[in-house]
C-alpha cells in the first residue's frame, strides 16, 4: 500500500497521548514499542468515555427514561461508526469482551448448531469434518478451534509457515478439502507482521463451502480494512489495540450468517420470548450480546475510530511501513542479531521480532527496559509459530502512529547496549 498523502505530523499527534510524555526507570524517556500488545489512548478517547459517563450513563436497551435513550443512542451510534470504519453494515457487528471472545463465540455457536434448528445446519461440525488453521495463529484463534475439534470429533489441520515467515500455501488443495468446515487465519501475524493473502484463502474456502474466520486484531488498527471487500465470513478484533478501551472487542459476521447462527452466551437482553419451558432469541446483533453490555467502552471505541479516521488509515499504514523499514535495516545491520520472519517489508505490518545471539529475550528486554524502551519478550501468545521458526522466544518491537524514527534509533542503540552489557558484542 502506498500513499501520496502528506506524512503524519507525529509531534503534534503525540501531544494527544499524555502517557507518552512520562518517564520510566529513573527518569528515562519512555519509548513505547509494544502497541501490538496494547496501544495507548488519546485524550479524545478518554474524554469521550468521561463525557458519556458524566452526561448519559444508563443501562442500554432497557428502560424508557431519557438517560436510557441517550445511552442506547451512544452505544448504537458507536456500532454504526465502527461498522463504517471496517466496511460492514450496522447489524453485522457484535460487541464482545475482547477479540478472544469473538473467536470463541463463533466456535461455540458452531458447536451448538447440532442441537439447534434447521437454519443452523450449515454450521454443524461432524466427526471427521476438518477445521483448518495456520501455524502462525495467536493462541486466541487456535485454541478455540482445537477445542471445537475436540468436542465434535473433527480433525484439525493447518498451514505451515515457511522459514521466511510466510504462510506455505503450496499444498492449499490438500489442506482445504470438501470436508473443511472452517478456515481460521490471521490477517496480519501478531509476531511477524506478515500480511496474509486473504483473497487466496477466501477463494479456496468458498470453493469447498467452508466458512472463513479472520483474526483482524493486527490489521484493523494499522491500515484500511474493508470486510465486505475481503469477503470473509467472520472477523474479530479488539478495541485496546486501536487506541480504544480494553474490555471491548468486535465480532464481524456476514448478515445472513449471523441471522442463522445459534447463540453462545445466553441470558438477558438476547431473548425474544422466555417461558419456563424454553426461549426464543433476538435477531443479531442482540442475540450475541447477553447481559448488560459494556457501554463507555463502546463509546470510547467509537471515539477511537473517529480519531483514526481523521488521521487517515493510509497515512498510518505508510508511517508504520517507514518505521518498519528503518528497524529492519538498523537491527539487521547489527552482528549477532537474527531477524525472525520476513526479512523485508513487503506485505508486512509494523512488527519486528528478533533474537540476539547469546542473550535470552527476557534479558534483552530487561536491558531495553532499563533504557526506557518497552518491547514485548516471550512467545507473544504464538508458541507453535516460535517452535517452527526455531526460536524459543523472541524480542518484538511493534509500531503505531505515534512512534518516531528517533525511537527506532533508540531501539537499535539499546540492542547494542544489551550486547555490551552481556559481553557478546
Amino acid at each position, binding site marked *: 500500500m502506498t500513499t501520496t498523502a502528506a506524512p503524519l505530523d507525529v509531534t503534534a499527534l503525540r501531544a494527544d497521548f499524555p502517557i507518552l510524555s512520562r518517564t520510566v526507570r529513573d527518569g528515562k524517556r519512555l519509548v513505547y514499542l509494544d502497541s501490538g500488545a496494547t496501544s495507548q489512548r488519546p485524550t479524545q478517547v478518554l474524554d469521550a468515555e468521561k463525557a458519556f459517563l458524566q452526561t448519559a450513563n444508563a443501562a442500554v436497551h432497557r428502560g424508557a427514561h431519557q438517560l436510557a435513550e441517550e445511552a442506547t443512542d451512544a452505544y448504537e451510534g458507536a456500532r454504526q461508526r465502527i461498522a463504517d470504519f471496517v466496511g460492514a453494515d450496522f447489524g453485522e457487528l457484535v460487541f464482545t469482551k475482547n477479540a478472544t471472545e469473538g473467536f470463541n463465540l463463533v466456535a461455540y455457536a458452531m458447536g451448538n448448531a447440532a442441537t439447534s434448528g434447521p437454519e443452523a445446519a450449515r454450521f454443524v461440525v461432524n466427526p471427521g469434518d476438518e477445521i483448518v488453521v495456520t501455524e502462525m495463529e495467536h493462541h486466541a484463534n487456535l485454541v478455540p478451534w482445537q477445542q471445537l475439534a475436540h468436542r465434535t470429533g473433527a480433525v484439525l489441520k493447518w498451514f505451515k509457515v515457511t522459514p521466511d515467515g510466510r504462510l506455505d500455501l503450496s499444498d492449499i488443495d490438500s489442506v482445504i478439502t470438501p470436508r473443511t468446515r472452517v478456515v481460521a487465519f490471521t490477517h496480519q501475524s501478531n509476531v511477524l507482521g506478515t500480511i496474509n493473502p486473504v483473497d487466496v484463502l477466501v477463494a479456496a474456502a468458498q470453493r469447498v463451502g467452508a466458512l472463513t474466520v479472520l483474526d483482524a486484531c493486527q490489521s484493523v488498527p494499522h491500515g484500511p480494512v474493508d470486510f465486505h471487500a475481503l469477503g470473509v465470513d467472520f472477523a474479530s478484533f479488539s478495541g485496546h489495540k486501536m487506541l480504544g478501551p480494553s474490555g471491548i472487542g468486535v465480532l464481524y459476521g456476514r448478515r445472513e450468517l449471523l441471522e442463522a447462527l445459534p447463540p453462545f452466551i445466553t441470558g438477558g437482553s438476547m431473548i425474544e420470548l422466555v417461558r419456563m419451558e424454553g426461549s426464543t432469541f433476538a435477531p443479531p446483533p442482540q442475540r450475541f450480546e447477553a447481559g448488560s453490555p459494556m457501554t463507555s467502552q463502546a463509546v470510547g471505541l467509537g471515539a477511537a475510530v473517529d480519531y483514526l479516521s481523521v488521521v487517515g488509515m493510509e497515512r498510518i499504514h505508510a508511517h508504520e511501513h517507514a518505521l518498519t523499514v528503518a528497524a529492519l535495516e538498523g537491527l539487521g545491520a547489527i552482528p549477532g542479531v537474527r531477524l525472525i520472519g520476513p526479512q523485508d517489508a513487503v506485505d508486512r505490518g509494523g512488527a519486528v521480532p528478533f533474537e540476539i545471539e547469546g542473550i*535470552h529475550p*527476557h534479558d534483552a528486554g530487561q536491558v531495553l527496559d532499563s533504557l526506557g524502551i518497552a518491547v514485548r519478550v516471550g512467545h507473544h501468545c504464538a508458541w507453535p509459530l516460535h517452535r517452527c521458526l526455531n526460536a524459543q522466544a523472541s524480542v518484538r518491537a511493534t509500531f503505531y502512529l505515534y512512534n518516531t524514527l528517533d525511537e527506532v534509533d533508540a531501539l537499535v542503540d539499546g540492542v547494542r547496549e544489551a550486547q555490551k552489557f552481556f559481553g557478546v558484542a
Partner: protein
Amino acid sequence: MQLQQMYQEIILDHYKNPHGRGLRSPYDAESFQVNPTCGDEVTLRVHVVDDVVQDVSYDGQGCSISQASTSVLTDLVVGKPVGEAFKKLDAFVELMQGRGQVEPDEDVLEDGIAFAGVAKYPARVKCALLGWMAFKDAVVRSQGAA
C-alpha cells in the same frame, strides 16, 4: 544503576558457567516445569538416598535468571538432608516474593542472596523460581515413589 543491581556478577557467573548442568542417572524422580509467559523450561532430576539429596541434575532453556538460579540451587541443596534443602527453598521463595523488602540470610542462601535485586521485578520472579519449583516437585514425587 538498576541493571547491575539485578544482574549481580554472581548471577552472570552462574549463567555463563552453570554448576551441575546436564541430566544424570541414577535419579528417583524428574520434574518438567515451564513458564507459560515466555516458554522457558527446565527438566530437573533428583537423587535422594536416606533422605539426603545426593544429586540434582537438569537441562533446559531459559534466561540468565532462571539458569543461574537453578545453578545456585544445586550448590545449595546437593549433600543436604531434604528437610534442610526445603528450608533453603522456603527462604529463597520468601526472598523472591518479597518485592525487595526481605533481607536475605547469607548463611542459609549463600550465592542465592544475589537474587535479592531480581525480587524488585515481579515479572522476573517466576524466572528465578522455575528450577526451584522443579526441585520441590521432583522431591515430592521421589517421596511418593518411595
